[in-house]
């Protein structure tokens, strides 16, 4: 990577970022060999929740759309994946021997519904895991964002969406398994070989890295700059001739697709999916992770989800009132540390500084020109300008 600024051709390869993320990745690669199987599954789960938080950060932290509906996308992907795994149960593992999943038999269905049947095949299921949430997001997004509706009302719409879908999924017992959701699914396998938990862990780790890298690349690009400007001042960006709605719909759909895939990976790990993850409560949980971790930092939400999840896991053995602690933490963060816990990190360690030594071409006119050999040192002024 290189960037031409004021006649200099400077290397913009983020060395520090590469070093730190390399070390972090190494830790996550070694970790599963050190910890027990329970910890391994917890860690995998938290990585997925963290990824979900990162996808919310894309729409909230960068674009300013606060959504309580990210649980929906996660769960839609999860259901697609669960149907696939359920339909691929071998006959002896299925309670009733036949092809029909047990919950459909209980609810008196006799044939597999046509819209579920194709999910038996992996490519269809894979497409559905990404496509169904993305399509849902595209439809809702085109509907919501092409209007004068602003910030808070969009949030209320996402609350209503989440509430309505939960009711819907619970009521359609024959197709969705009702409140219990889809349980007892088969193990994920490739060519007849079951993938062990550690394999799923690495799959999830790879996905997390992919989402992080994609989000980082996206937000550092010009596209990301436009997203952030929409967050700052939507009208001004519209006056400059950008189609704000189009950008919002794109990032909303992309984020939904990424969240859906996280949900799709969640089911082979967790072995069930239920409307619990559709509900407003789970949606808010995701929002809390992002808020505490720090909006627009990407790594903050991931870290917050993982750390809070770990602490919750240990705290719940001691006290039932862990939620109270989360509530107090959220209040304190909102009132006193509005940019999240990531903003407490020393400046040099912040993600945006590590990843962005380059002054943007536009900003470079006023910022002092950085000699090539100093390019990787973050300049405080330039950093403040860009954050």
């Amino acid at each position, binding site marked *: 990577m290189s960037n031409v600024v004021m006649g200099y051709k400077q290397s913009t390869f983020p060395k520090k970022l590469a070093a730190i993320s390399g070390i972090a990745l190494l830790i996550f690669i070694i970790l599963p060999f050190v910890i027990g199987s329970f910890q391994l599954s917890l860690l995998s789960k938290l990585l997925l929740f963290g990824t979900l938080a990162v996808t919310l950060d894309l729409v909230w932290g960068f674009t300013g759309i606060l959504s309580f509906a990210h649980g929906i996308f996660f769960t839609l992907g999860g259901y697609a994946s669960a149907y696939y795994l359920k339909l691929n149960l071998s006959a002896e593992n299925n309670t009733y021997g036949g092809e029909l999943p047990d919950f459909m038999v209980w609810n008196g269905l006799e044939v597999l519904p046509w819209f579920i049947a194709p999910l038996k095949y992996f490519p269809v299921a894979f497409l559905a895991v990404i496509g169904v949430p993305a399509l849902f997001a595209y439809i809702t997004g085109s509907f919501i964002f092409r209007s004068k509706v602003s910030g808070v009302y969009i949030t209320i719409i996402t609350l209503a969406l989440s509430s309505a879908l939960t009711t819907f999924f619970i*009521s359609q017992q024959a197709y969705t398994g009702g409140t219990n959701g889809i349980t007892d699914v088969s193990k994920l396998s490739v060519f007849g070989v079951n993938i062990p938990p550690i394999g799923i862990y690495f799959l999830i780790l790879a996905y997390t890295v992919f989402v992080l890298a994609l989000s980082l690349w996206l937000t550092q690009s010009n596209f990301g700059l436009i997203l952030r400007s929409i967050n700052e001042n939507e009208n001004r960006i519209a006056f400059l001739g950008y189609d704000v709605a189009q950008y919002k719909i794109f990032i909303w759909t992309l984020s939904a697709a990424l969240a859906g895939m996280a949900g799709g990976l969640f089911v082979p790990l967790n072995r069930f999916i239920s409307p619990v993850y559709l509900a407003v409560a789970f949606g808010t949980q995701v929002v809390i992770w992002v808020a505490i971790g720090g909006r627009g930092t990407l790594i903050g939400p991931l870290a917050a989800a993982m750390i809070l999840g770990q602490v919750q896991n240990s705290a719940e053995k001691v006290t039932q009132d862990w939620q109270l602690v989360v509530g107090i933490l959220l*209040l304190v963060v909102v009132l006193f540390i509005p940019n999240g816990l990531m903003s407490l990190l020393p400046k040099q360690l912040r993600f945006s500084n590590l990843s962005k030594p380059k002054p943007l071409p536009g900003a470079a006119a006023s910022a002092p020109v950085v000699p090539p050999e100093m390019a990787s040192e973050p300049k405080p002024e330039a950093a403040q300008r860009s954050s």
Partner: protein
Amino acid sequence: MLDLALSSMMSSPVYLLAQDAAAEVTEATGESFSYTSLANQALNGIGIVGILLLTALGLAITFGVMRIINLAHGEFIMLGAYITFWMQDTFGMDLLLTIPFAFVGTALVGALVELTIIRRLYGRPLETLLATWGLSIVLQGIIKLIFTAQLKYVKAPAYLSGSIDLMTDETGSVLISMSYYRSFIVVVALALLGITMFLFYGTSWGRQIRAVTQNRSMSQCLGVNTKLIDMGTFAYGCGLAGIAGTVISALKTVSPPMGQDYLVDSWMVVVTGGVDKLVGILAGAFLIGESNAIIAFLLNDPTARVLVLGAVIVLIRYRPEGLFTVQKRS
């Protein structure tokens, strides 16, 4: 009328949510169409309207008038219910007598919240939303610490049990009836709406509130103590939520997450009715409550809820200012 509240999300999947839903489906189906049962259902709907109106009234003040996105609204309802439970449990007080205490108690908590949290966040709606969500978790946690997570039951006064028979057939069996308690809820809701409207449009305090919401700096110049007005208005809205909690407590069980059930519904009512005039929420509650009841009668309960929520989403999309707001030029 269901929404879910799960205290700890990640640990247990078997937090089963909607026992209501399943129960009400069976109730609604299997009945042949008849006008008396439709009328019954419509009356049932009036009961729902009463509850919606009652729970949304406080929100109409805090959101409609003050523009505070209050996600802890449900928890103030819950606080009112717990105050009633506590007074009934320790002093054996009548439910009606606990209403003033519930009002004052929740209003005090509301004033404290305004002073410590809301006041710092004026003009930052999304931060307010997050902070009040945090507050709702904290309030639930505190109540759980004091009263434990067990379900509590509040007794309705004996003179409010039973029902009015509005229509009987020749043999004397009841065709259409309305329970006293549901009528009581409607009466309380309408009375509170009336009192609130009087306060807002007929007293100098109300005039000051309206002045502050219309032009804060101007009213400051005219010597209105805006901070005091803010605190008073928020506390009043919370107090109304407390009364709602008291009245509802006898209808359902009292538990820390109970407020969540009413949060989404109250929001829908306020958003539907529009926040310009207080009468709007009467219309909003009526529309949502009745359409819920009628669709539930024709189809079933979950479908009714999904359809009504869908309709509200469409409504917000096209008229975020609500159905009953006069279009203004801005």
